[in-house]
């Protein structure tokens, strides 16, 4: 059998694919963009990336500021997992996060819906400003004032409760009520941010959709549950992500109000980091706790985005 296979003629070489050279204008634009971005990138690298890497490295050392650091391997991590104060602080922080974020979103959403209802424009502006105002104040200053208000013996809160016959509550000195007081103070200050997001989100929902829902007979709570909430879900995602990240880093309120007490009832992770590093000079252990908190925040945020695929509806 002869070889009848016909050899394919050699292909002509493919013309070299080269990107068109950017024009001078494009190069200038790119350079300009890089120049504008540079301060931000430098800022993120210097103030975020380097400290994160530094913390990870420091978590592998014992360092008390006074002496040179000594390599500790994973000792700080092992110590952390056997330290009851650290473990309790993580539990407290998670409990705080759940209640604070839930309450914050609920109040903010309710008020946003109320403010978005029928009312004079000037009154709407007053409410918006009033609800946002606590957010611009210093958390430490607010906590100092709240400490007076929540004082068991001399506070205004208990005085008001006394007027309606309720016995004084040891808000800040009882293990049962201290966390509640811290959550209340935190939520009072923080809900303004979520409120503003929700107001913006509500304004972005086309009126026609509400009108169509009304024609179909959806009113009141049913309309909000079946129409408003799904359309507001992207905003809810943003508000909950920001809220959870902030709540996991809570420090000022428990530090000023209760100093973590009574006992460890309100001690949070960031408080433990501060106390270990700056009061007890255990910078390595503090860094190890910081690294774990960082991982926790990353994991929770990743989980939120994962779940958002199912629950968030984009128009």
């Amino acid at each position, binding site marked *: 059998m002869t070889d009848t296979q016909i050899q394919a003629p050699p292909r002509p070489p493919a013309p070299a694919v080269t990107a068109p050279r950017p024009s001078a204008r494009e190069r200038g634009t790119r350079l300009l963009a890089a120049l504008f971005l540079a301060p931000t990138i430098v800022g993120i690298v210097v103030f975020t990336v380097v400290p994160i890497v530094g913390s990870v490295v420091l978590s592998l050392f014992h360092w008390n500021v006074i002496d040179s650091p000594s390599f500790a391997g994973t000792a700080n991590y092992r110590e952390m997992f056997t330290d009851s104060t650290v473990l309790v602080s993580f539990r407290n922080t998670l409990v705080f996060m759940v209640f604070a974020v839930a309450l914050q979103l609920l109040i903010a959403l309710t008020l946003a819906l109320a403010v978005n209802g029928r009312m004079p424009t000037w009154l709407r502006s007053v409410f918006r400003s009033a609800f946002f105002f606590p957010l611009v104040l210093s958390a430490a200053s607010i906590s100092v004032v709240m400490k007076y208000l929540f004082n*068991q013996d001399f506070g205004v809160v208990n005085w008001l409760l006394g007027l309606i016959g309720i016995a004084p509550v040891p808000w800040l000195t009882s293990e049962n009520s201290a966390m509640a007081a811290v959550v209340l103070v935190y939520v009072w200050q923080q809900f303004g941010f979520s409120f503003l997001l929700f107001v913006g989100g509500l304004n972005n929902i086309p009126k026609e959709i509400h009108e169509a829902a009304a024609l179909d007979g959806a009113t009141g709570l049913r309309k909000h549950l079946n129409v408003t909430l799904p359309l507001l879900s992207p905003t809810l995602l943003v508000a909950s992500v920001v809220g959870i990240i902030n709540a996991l880093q809570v420090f000022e309120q428990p530090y000023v109000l209760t100093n973590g007490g009574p006992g460890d009832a309100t001690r949070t992770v960031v408080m433990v980091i501060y106390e270990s590093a700056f009061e007890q000079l255990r910078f390595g252990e503090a860094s190890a706790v910081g690294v774990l908190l960082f991982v926790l925040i990353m994991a929770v945020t990743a989980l939120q985005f994962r779940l958002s695929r199912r629950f968030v509806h984009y128009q």
Partner: protein
Amino acid sequence: MTDPHLSRRTLLRYGAYGAGAAALAGTAASWDRLTGADIPGRDDGSLVVATLGPAYGPEAVRTLTEGFKKVHPDIKLRVNAVQAVDWSDFFAKILTQIAAGTAPDLVYVATEGVQLFAQRLGVALDHWVRRDAEELREYFADVHPSLVESMMYEGSLYQLPVEFNAADIYLNNQVLKRAGADFPAADWTRDDFTALLRDMKKASGSQFTPYFWTNRLWGGVVPWLFANDTNLLAESKAPGGSWLWDSFYPAAQRAGRGGGYRWTTPQATHDRVEEVYDYLASLIREDLCTRPEGGNGQNLIGVFSTGRVGVTPAGGFWAGGLNLAGMRPDGFDTQYFPRWRTQRMQFGAAGYALLRTSKRQEEAWEFIKYAARRDTLMRLFETNQTTPARRSMLTADRYRETGPKHWPVFYDTLDKFPDTGPIPAPPQVAEVEQVLLKHTGTALSSPRSVRPALRRMQRDLEKAMEREI
């Protein structure tokens, strides 16, 4: 192919960019930029003294600086008043400065930090004290040896105390009158104290708290522990120190003195400690005192001066504080802490510690001597914001405008009770204090929680004391 010719508009735009960049660069170059030399005290040849900001306002800083300049015009001085909530916060900030390579030469250190600084950061003053003994004789004659001993560590002296505050009892005279009670005797007992609280409660409304105290190392549980002849940590004296006692104090005053305090074995579960917590818990149950809050007692002046609190532990610093709050000199008075098993009382003192990293140690020593001079302290402590360490400064004239009537109590707490001692503050003080506050809060936050909380306190104290600083 690109157009090699730039349009006029493009040319103008790039020209504007260039001009803007040049203008920015020129402006930046012409500005006075921050350099290492701009960090306070760095590289400018100054002797840097770090003080606790709230205790040293601008007026006090000016007094110190100008007065020192007159005596030592050749030494450039910079006083860095560090703002901090309390001593713990202050030390944290100083340590941060040290870590950053901008350590001051001198740091104002209270009892809480004396041993930490002495062990890790400070320079003993023994050599200079011996050298300038004649000059210092007048100082030591005026300062109680207990205060000096509290500034010693393992036989060496690290600070000259300039102020102190013992936990005495402040009483609101209006509340006493309302209760029909007499001013307590100097040797009053714990039972007298309890009876007085009950009388006060009976005579006042529900919005009244007979006894208010703050959960902290100074003036919290510790005065009660001392009164019950115990302590949080086993207390002993280091050997040594005779070089100082033999040189400056008569035999009667130097008896039993050593080389400074040692606080070692935790004893939170000892019977006497439990008794103290049981007693405080019983006062809470009877509604005679508050559940203690943490903090520095900043909200106390208001409620005491308006008669909503009858009794509280405080030091000489409160005379000035109550006066500033508008309280008349006869509106309050002071008595010793009540007797239980003993009438030993607690104090905290403060002075300047010289850091090892200082390159100006001779100049720093001159400042330490200057800061301990009587005329300096007279100018600094005009408003009775503290108790001067010098006995001769406590006079009727000083307390005429502020009160209290029984002002001699402040120094007699040392003179008449020579076993009165400093709050327990080993080098591990930060952790010890945190453990104390944490478990005290738990112990008194609910019924039947004293013993479990003290067991946890003991365990945590043992752990803290084992830790190397």
